[in-house]
């Protein structure tokens, strides 16, 4: 157990899997697979495993995604880390190929592949293309692809192990804002299941559901509401597909109130799916979702920070729903 960043924890899992499997490859651009943390050795996959296996590609994310898919079809475990600047370029490879190949081959195709798709850190001032947070529900809709979205270093490591070992194509959403998050993370390899939400706080008055880069604000709001005497059940989705309907339904059976929080746009945000699944299974509950408006993120920090849901918005919405 040691203090590790999100980046270090995730790369520790990759390093272990690459040591176990000499065929496994890693394709990247812009972000070298390098991480350090106090008191631990620097991880550098490129120098440890060499450029035959760890390749710094040109700016061509369609190729990067196609490359790891093809590598997996040829029998090698393969992972690519696609920075947020290119996270929509690979859509066709995932939607038309990775998601459909097993089905259309009658189960013949094997694809032990992980597509790490970075989402922006939503840094104020970067504007539009560099501060959007929109691909979560885009990729979650594709059949045949698992879609995970860890929000803590511990989950990043455990879900990375599980994703690499999973024989299905997995999209690993990597919220850039979480990159430097630090907590105690076990040193030995372990798996966190790819289909279970995490109940981060238990309570009986309201269920608040978030995911990925939105979780720090959800937890900040949950702590504040709890301090004010509200019983908050805070749930971190962790996986958008498959979605852990059971955990969500059980929670709202108890609280009868559901608030979803998304950094993603309002229309068809993950929260919309959460509410639909719960509404199908729970009688007499009240629902509310908050999300980024259906507008591209503007550059001006005044506009952007007002539009992005924060802990204050979550607290106000929860109080209104419980009132």
């Amino acid at each position, binding site marked *: 157990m040691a203090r590790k960043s999100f980046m270090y924890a995730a790369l520790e899992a990759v390093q272990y899997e690459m040591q176990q499997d000499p065929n496994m490859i890693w394709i990247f651009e812009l972000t070298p697979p390098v991480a350090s943390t106090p008191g631990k050795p620097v991880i550098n996959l490129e120098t440890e495993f060499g450029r035959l296996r760890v390749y710094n*590609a040109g*700016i*061509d994310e369609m190729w990067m995604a196609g490359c790891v898919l093809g590598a997996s079809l040829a029998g090698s475990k393969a992972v690519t880390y696609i920075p947020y600047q*290119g996270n929509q370029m690979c859509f066709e490879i995932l939607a038309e190929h990775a998601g459909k190949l097993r089905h259309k081959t009658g189960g013949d195709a094997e694809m032990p592949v992980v597509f790490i798709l970075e989402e922006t850190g939503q840094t104020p001032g970067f504007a539009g*293309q560099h501060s959007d947070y929109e691909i979560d529900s885009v990729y979650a809709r594709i059949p045949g692809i698992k879609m995970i979205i860890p929000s803590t270093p511990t989950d990043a490591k455990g879900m990375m192990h599980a994703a690499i070992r999973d024989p299905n194509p997995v999209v690993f959403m990597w919220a850039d804002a979480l990159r430097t998050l630090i907590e105690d993370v076990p040193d030995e390899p372990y798996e966190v299941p790819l289909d279970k939400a995490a109940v981060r706080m238990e309570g009986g008055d309201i269920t608040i559901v978030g995911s990925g880069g939105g979780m720090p604000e959800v937890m900040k709001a949950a702590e504040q509401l709890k301090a004010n005497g509200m019983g908050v059940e805070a749930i971190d989705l962790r996986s958008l597909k498959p979605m852990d309907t059971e955990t969500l339904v059980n929670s709202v059976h108890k609280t009868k109130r559901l608030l979803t929080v998304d950094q993603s746009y309002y229309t068809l945000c993950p929260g919309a799916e959460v509410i639909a699944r719960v509404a199908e299974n729970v009688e007499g509950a009240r629902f509310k979702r908050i999300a980024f408006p259906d507008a591209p993120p503007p550059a001006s920090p005044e506009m952007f920070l007002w539009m992005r849901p924060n802990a204050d918005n979550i607290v106000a919405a929860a109080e209104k729903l419980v009132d």
Partner: protein
Amino acid sequence: MSENIDISTEIAATKQTPSTTRRKFLKAFAGAGAAVSLGSKIAWANGEIGFWAMDLTHEKLIWMYETILRMRWFDRTVADKMLTEPGYRGYNHMYPGQEAVSTGVSAALNNSGGVMEADLVYGTHRPTGHAIGKGVDIKKLAAEYDFRATGLNKGYAGEMQISDKSVGYMGADSIIGAGWVMATGSAFAIRARGSKQVVVNYGGDGTYATPHFHSALLNATLIKLPFIYVVENNLYHQYAHYSYSCPMRDIADAAGPYGIPGVVVDGQDVFQVYNVMKEAVDRARAGEGPTLIEAKTYRYYNHWGAPGAKAGELGAFGYDPLAITSFRPEREVRAWMQRDPVDICRNTLIDWGIIDQARAEEIEAAIRQEVAEAFAWADEQPFCKPEDGLKNVFVEGSVPARQFG
């Protein structure tokens, strides 16, 4: 003339003869340029490129010097503000070192009349030079970089997304690749309506790897679009040397299989850039199709912001913590700074007798004053209203707020 000729020696040699007549000097100078311009086989096959800059008016030549300085001092001011003013919110992908490219390009274009008349330019995420070359208002540009409501794009854009269609500047783009393809679309419209405009797309050396690069080249060639590709090869894409993504020394060689001109030009020399652009523009306006220009240039700063830079000093020599794959050795930065686009432009104009040293200094002082006033104006501008973030999604109205319960 050998492709391997040492250009800097040649230029230095000509500089040592101030008594040389303008015409004689120009001949030597053109020779030096030709060695660079004709670096690719395609350009050889198309014949020697003329020294068209010699035909420009005094006003235009001085405009080129002023424009280079305006770009230089604009970005140096952003760098200094980033380094010294904790409250300054702007940032930049610094352009210094590359000013001769976009100045020489813009000097060959029509920069007024909006999208139906002006020559159109699609830029990259290193946009200061592209925008200033096209003639955007630098007061509004400074305000936009600091996200003010009266900025060039009303605070919606920030540095990486600026645009001004009134001067034909179609915009910066923080995602690499698609600009090439969209620019060919603008060229298609121009060809279909017969409006004689041309379209220029700037791309960095990293764009060579994108599928868009090859798609744009192919389609522009097949239908002879009025289209000019300007690759600013500053040796590094993001944090990797361009050899990581391009197998050729000269990206201009990509023109070869298409049979279109692929020209390598000294991107530090504004007059050389103008010369090749003039020919490319003439060719495009005449309906003869696209040209690929590769300007060999260099950025004095790291990929983004001002890491390694010191306030009041040009360039960044420190180690960039993000540059893990390739970092720019200090020796390399200093070597390129020996061939500075400001110096080359100024010394040439002095050698030609267009201006003297005293006039050159006056011009620089005036530009520095203009830039300082632009940033002072920007500092006084109002911030954006938060709720305006819901506007401009569609032409009409605004979208609902969804961030509240």
